[in-house]
């Protein structure tokens, strides 16, 4: 056990799985870098933000493959390789680039097993960065997990910390279905204690990061940290919150969400993806259908507005959910009177 960054946790997960299983291969744009460069330096980048650094040096060019800037072909190649014996981890860099290769994910990898009558396995992992807060503007800041969650056949993982990232990525690599693994680009330098050895965290089991009596806050990815920050402040004001991290949006741990809402009677969902048809909508529908009687107040969603992500710093701040916005949402329903259910 030692302190590791989100970046190191992911690197270690990849390294340990590649050591364990020779069928695990990595591919993506500049996952190593330096090929064809005039200095002859190999592994020059190790990923655009250094996440895969050192892997090509250890595992060689046949298992860590730099790709041309051709997402449709290499994401599709990863899907095809997955269906025929390899366990590829393909890096899409920014999840926004899925626009260039969605067919290979949505119509190919996701559907093989069902369409082929259960005869295919597609142990594919696609890693990509998501999220705003980097001034990266509209085409490099989206949080597209609802898009993937919408597609049957895909599993979708959104880790909330370095510990979570390592265990969930190892699980993703060992899983036999296509998994979209989304890393918040603002979190790479976050640190916490992470075990040195390999471990897995099962999909579809939400993590109760904090238990309270008054309100359940369900938060996704980076929002989990913000929700806990808000819960700290609210605790000082006498409001006690449960903070739940679903870890995977597909499969979704509906059971634990419903149990928490049954206990607290109030629900706030924090989701940094565009507000229409996002996880906050999905979880709201779940609770409205199955725990309506337990609700003491309306459900509140802390989500961005329905706009592309703006570039300018003050606009991006307004756009993003924050601990303050979560705190305000919780207070707004604590003050609300219990609706009389006829």
């Amino acid at each position: 056990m030692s302190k590791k960054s989100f970046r190191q946790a992911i690197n270690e997960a990849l390294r340990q799985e590649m050591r364990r299983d020779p069928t695990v291969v990595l591919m993506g744009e500049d996952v190593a870098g330096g090929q064809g460069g005039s200095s002859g330096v190999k592994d020059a980048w190790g990923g655009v933000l250094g996440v895969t650094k050192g892997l090509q040096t250890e595992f060689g060019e046949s298992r860590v493959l730099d790709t041309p800037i051709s997402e449709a072909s290499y994401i599709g190649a990863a899907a095809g390789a997955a269906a025929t014996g390899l366990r590829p981890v393909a890096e899409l860099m920014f999840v926004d680039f899925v626009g260039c290769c969605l067919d290979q994910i949505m119509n190919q990898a996701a559907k093989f097993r069902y369409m082929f009558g259960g005869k295919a396995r597609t142990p594919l992992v696609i890693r990509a960065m998501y999220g705003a807060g980097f001034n990266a503007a509209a085409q490099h800041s989206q949080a597209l997990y609802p898009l993937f969650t919408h597609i049957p056949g895909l599993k979708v993982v959104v880790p909330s910390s370095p510990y979570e990232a390592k265990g969930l990525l190892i699980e993703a690599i060992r899983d036999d279905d296509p998994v979209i693994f989304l890393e918040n680009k603002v979190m790479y330098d976050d640190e916490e204690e992470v075990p040195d050895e390999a471990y897995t965290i099962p999909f579809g089991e939400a993590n109760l990061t904090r238990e309270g009596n008054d309100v359940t806050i369900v938060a996704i990815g980076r929002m989990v940290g913000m929700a806990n920050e808000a819960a700290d402040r609210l605790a000082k004001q006498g409001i006690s919150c449960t903070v739940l991290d679903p870890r995977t949006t597909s499969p979704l741990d509906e059971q634990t969400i419903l149990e928490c809402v049954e206990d607290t009677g109030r629900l706030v969902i924090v989701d940094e993806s565009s507000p229409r048809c996002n996880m906050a909508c999905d979880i709201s529908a779940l609770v409205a259908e199955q725990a309506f009687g337990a609700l003491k107040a309306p459900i509140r969603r802390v989500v961005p507005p329905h706009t592309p992500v703006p570039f300018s710093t003050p606009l991006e701040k307004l756009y993003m959910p924050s601990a303050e916005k979560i705190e305000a949402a919780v207070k707004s329903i604590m003050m609300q009177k219990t609706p009389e259910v006829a």
Partner: protein
Amino acid sequence: MQISTETLLQSYRAMRTIRVFEERLHREFATGEIPGFVHLYCGEEASAVGVCANLTDQDTIASTHRGHGHCIAKGVDVGGMMAEIYGRKSGVCRGKGGSMHIADLSKGMLGANGIVGGGPPLICGAALSHKVLKDNGVAVAFFGDGASNEGTTLESLNLASVWQLPAVFVVEDNGYGEATGASYACAGNQKDRAAGFGMPYMECDGSDFFAVHDTARDAIDHARSGKGPVMLHVHLQRWYGHFEGDAMSYRAANEVADAKKNHDCLESFRTRVEQEKLLDLNALDEIDASVADEVESAVQAAKQAPWPEEADLMADVYVKI
């Protein structure tokens, strides 16, 4: 054909503006005041300027993540660009887009682009507009050697040929897509790719304004005259990292220094106009001074310009809801 004095002066001014603009951004970025990703066009100035010198506001271009040079060459306001890069309300895109999304449709500038290979399909559409509207316009896609491997780019070459569009595909080949060399990433070669799609191929040294200008003129004339699309392959060197903050360990130690010494489009322009007595060198010095002032005031104005306001967040998602 002789290039007019006016065009020469304007082109020199545009190239100098790009150089000073980018070098200033390099310094300002290091202070931490500029947010987001910034990709500099230094070293490649003659490509944008040599091509755009053959275009008017009627013609359309599409650019890339490395778009400042194309914007300046197409006449986008320098002050508005700087304010955009600083995220201010007075920016050409009101602070909504930033460096990677500068656009000005009134100048026929269809946008820088955060998506590699985003431009070529759009340029097929712009070329279709020019063709259908019979406005005599040409559409030009600038894209990199890296982007030449995107499916969108290859499909666009095909579509433009199938539809015989008035389009020019300018491959700005600086030898790298991020940290990966074109010699690794590009199979075959651009010439054969053009041939494969049945379009003429032209190439030139992108550090030589005159070479770019004349080759681009032929390419653009061809497209404008209704003979279909052309590929123009421009050989370039980039003088800075892929983006600001890139240490460039993948490049040989002397590569950039050599490019600056031997492939400086501004130096070669000066030498050529002096040797051939095309321009009065004092005029170039005056341009240098005036550009320095222009960029300085653009930076000062940008730093002091007001930020966008809360109401701007929701504005312009749709024309009408």
